[in-house]
C-alpha cells in the first residue's frame, strides 16, 4: 500500500508554503480571527471567509482579495485562534502567491513592500526618505505633496536621513539573498 497521494490542491500549496500551515485543516470557521482583525472592516473577506475559500479551492478569488494586503501583521487573530492556526503567516504566504501569480488588485501595497525590499537589498538597511518619495512618486503621485509636509517635519526633527546608509559587507548579504531566492524558486517549481 502506498502513502496517500499528494494532491497538490491550492489548499495544499498554501499549507506547504507556510511554517505550521498544516494546522489550517482544523479551522473551525469560528470567526474569532475575523472579529479580532483591526482592519477587518475594510477587507474584501474576513480571514475566516478566506480560509473557507481556500479549502473550496477558489484560488483566483483568494489571490485577488485585498484581505492579505490589509493585514497589518498584528497577530491578534493568531494568538486568539482556538485552533492555534498561524493565520498571520498564512497572510504572508497569500501575498507572496498573489505577487507571483500577478493576481492582486491592490498593486500599491505589493509595490510598497517591493520598494522597501529594493532598498534593503541594495544597501542592507532601509531608507525611509528614499522609500517614501520613490514609492509615492511612482505609485500615488497625488500623495507626494502631503507627504512632503510630513517629511519636512521629520527632517526638521532630525528624523529623516537624506543620505542612505549601507552596510559594509553588502556583497555578502547579496550573495545570501541570491542563494535564498534561487532556493525559493526551486521550492515553487517543486
Amino acid at each position: 500500500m502506498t502513502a496517500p497521494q499528494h494532491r497538490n490542491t491550492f489548499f495544499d500549496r498554501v499549507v506547504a508554503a507556510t511554517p505550521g500551515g498544516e494546522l489550517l485543516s482544523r479551522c473551525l470557521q469560528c470567526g474569532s480571527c475575523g472579529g479580532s482583525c483591526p482592519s477587518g472592516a475594510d477587507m474584501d473577506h474576513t480571514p475566516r471567509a478566506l480560509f473557507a475559500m481556500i479549502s473550496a479551492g477558489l484560488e483566483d478569488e483568494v489571490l485577488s482579495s485585498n484581505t492579505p494586503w490589509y493585514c497589518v501583521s498584528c497577530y491578534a487573530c493568531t494568538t486568539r485562534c482556538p485552533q492555534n492556526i498561524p493565520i498571520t503567516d498564512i497572510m504572508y504566504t497569500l501575498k507572496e502567491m498573489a505577487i507571483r501569480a500577478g493576481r492582486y488588485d491592490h498593486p500599491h501595497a505589493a509595490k510598497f513592500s517591493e520598494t522597501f525590499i529594493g532598498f534593503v537589498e541594495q544597501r542592507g538597511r532601509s531608507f525611509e526618505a528614499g522609500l517614501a518619495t520613490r514609492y509615492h512618486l511612482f505609485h500615488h503621485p497625488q500623495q507626494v505633496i502631503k507627504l512632503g509636509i510630513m517629511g519636512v517635519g521629520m527632517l526638521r526633527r532630525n528624523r529623516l536621513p537624506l543620505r542612505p546608509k549601507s552596510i559594509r559587507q553588502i556583497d555578502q548579504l547579496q550573495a545570501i539573498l541570491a542563494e535564498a531566492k534561487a532556493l525559493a524558486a526551486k521550492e515553487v517549481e517543486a
Partner: protein
Amino acid sequence: MSEPRVGVYVCHCGHNIAGTVDVQHVAEWAMGLPNVVIARDNRFMCASTGQEQIEEDIKQFELTHVVVASCSPHMHEKTFRNACARAGLNPYLFEMANIREHASWVHPNDREGATNKAKALVSAAVHRVVHQQPLEPMKVDIRPETLVVGGGIAGIQAALEIADAGYHVYLVEREPSIGGHMAMFDKTFPTLDCAACILTPKMFDAGGHPNITLLTYSEVEKVDGYVGNFQVRVRKKARMVDESLCTGCGTCWEKCPIKVVDTVWEAGLGYRKAIYRPFPQAVPKYPVIDIENCTYFKTGKCRMCEKVCPTNAINYEMQDEIIDLEVGNIILATGYKLFDARRIPQYGYGRLENVFTSLEFERLTNASGPTEGKIVLRDGETMPQTVAIVHCVGSRDRNYNTHCSAICCMSSLKFAHLVMEKTGAKVYNFYIDMRPIHKGYEEFYHRIMEEGATFIRGKVSEITDVARSPEEEGKLIVVCEDTLLGRQRRVPVDMVILAAGLEPQADAQEIAHMFGVGCGDTGFFIERHPKLDPVATMTEGVFIAGACQGAKDIPDSVAQGAAAAARVLGTINQRQVTLEPIRASIDEERCSGCRICNNMCPYNAIDFIEEKGVSRVNPALCKGCGTCVAACPSQVITGAHFTFEQIMAEIDGIMIDVLSDRPVVEAV
C-alpha cells in the same frame, strides 16, 4: 517434565484471512516448528466446530499448549481459553497470533508479505507458548460497605441506590453540605423545573437514610488495600458546632458580625457570615465556622455566636476527627470546576463590571440568591435592556480546554429564556455550533428561538468598553465576526454572561493518584473503556460517576451514578471477584533490597519488608503492567504471563526466517 506438545490452528475467517494469507501453507509450515505435533487450518475457529476441534485434539494428541492464529486476542482470546479449559488444559497455556487485524486486513495487496508475516507471528506464538505456565485466577472477598466521594447529584444518586438495596454507604463531601453545583441553580434545562424542588428531597433522603453515613466537611486522606477490602482514612474537619446539640435555628449566623464574600455557593456574587450554613436547604442543616475569617480565631475576641446560641452548640475547641473506614468498593463523584474566565483577558471578566459568569448568573436568577432572583447589573439595581450570552468560554479552544463542555449550549438557552422572561431584555447568543443533543433539547432550542432570542454565529473576539459611536457609549461592546454574514459586528449590550466551560477539579490529579485511577488528556478521570465500560476504572473496585469523568449534564450524571451503583451491587452480590492472574512477583531469595521497584509501581503495590530487607508485591494491588519487572536491576521480578523468557522466546520466534534468508549473514 516431558516434552511440550503444541497444537497450532490457523483460521481462514472465511475469506477474511484466507483471501490474503496462504493459510494452508502457514499450517503446513507450522508443522516444522519445534514442539508442534499438530497444525491445522480451519474455516471458522471461533465457531463451535473450531472450538471442538481444539478440545478433541487436546485429548487425542495430549497437547500441552495451544496456539490459534486468527483475529485479535481482544476478540476471541476468552473464547479459546475457555475451549482449552473445557478440555482440561489450563487456559493460560494458550496463545493467540493475530493474523487478521495485523496481517490479512492491512496487507490486502501483498499476499507474500502477509503470509510471511503470518508465519513469523505463528512462530512467535509457538516459541512463546512453551514457556507459558498454568495460572489460577485470583478470587477476593468483597466487603459490602461502599465509599462514595463527592456529594453532588451523581454521588447522591449512587449512594441512594446502594443504600436502598440494603448496603451501607459512607458519603464523603468536602463542603459543609451535600448538593454540589445543582444546589446553586434555580431552574434546570430543558424542562425548567426548579432545581431545589427535585434536589432537596434527594438530599434529605441521603441525609436521613439509615444505611448512609454522611461525612460532610470531610476529605479522604489516604487509601490502602484493594478491591473488596479498601482501608480509607477520612479527615472530618472541625465544624466548631456540635451537631448533636445544634438545632439549626440560625441565631448564630444572624448575629455574627463578620461578612465574607461567598465564593463557593454564591459564586462570589453574594455574602455569608463567618459562621454560616451554605444555603437554606443544606444537608446537614448545621452551620460551620470558617476559621480563616472568624475574628475569634484570628484575634481571640468576639465569641458572639457562642453567647447567642440557645443550645450551647458552639465549641471553639473542637478538633479535626480522623475516621478509618473499611469498604469493598469506591465510587468517585467529585464533579467539576467552572473554568476561570479571568484567564481570557479580552472578555473582561473581573475588569469590566457587567461581565458575569454563568454560575454568577445562576445565583442572580435564583430566588434564594443575593438579589432574590432579580436580574440586575453589578450595581445591584439596574435591569439590563440588552444581554449578550457568550458560548464556549474556555471550551473548544486549544489555548484553554480543547473539549466541548457539553452543557453550556443548553445552559445558555436557559439563560436566554430567564432573561427574556424576567426582564424583557433583548438577548443575543453568540455561538460557534449549537449542540442541544439530548432528548427534548432541540425542542428547547426552538422554543427559545420562538421566544425571540437572537442567535449570532461567531466566536466572540473581545468584549470592550471602548466605544466607537454614540450608541456604544457606556455599554459593553461584544465584538465578533457574524460568520453567516461574513462581516464584523459590534453589538452594544448592558450585560454579558460568559458560558464558562466545565473543567476537572483543581485537585483531580491528586485524587486520581490517591485512588489509583488516571486522568486523560482533558484532565478528567479515565474510564476503563470509553464506550463499553464508562463507569469502571483500571483499578478494580474503583468506579467513577458524573462530571468528574467528563463534562455532562444532570440526567447523564444521575444515570452514571446509578450505573456505578449497579456495578458495585453486582460485586457485592457475588461476594467475590475474580482477578486476572497477570501479576508481578518478586523472588525474595534473590532480591537485593535496593528498593528501586518500590517507587516504580503506579499502584503502590510493592512494599519493602524491613525485617527481611526485601521487597514484596501485593498481588491484589498489582495490575500487571510490568514496569517494575523491567526496572529491577537484579532481574528478580517476574511478570506472570509476560516473563522475560516468554518475551525473549517470542522475539526469537518472530525473527525465525530472517537470518536464514539473508545470505550475507552467518546464522548465529
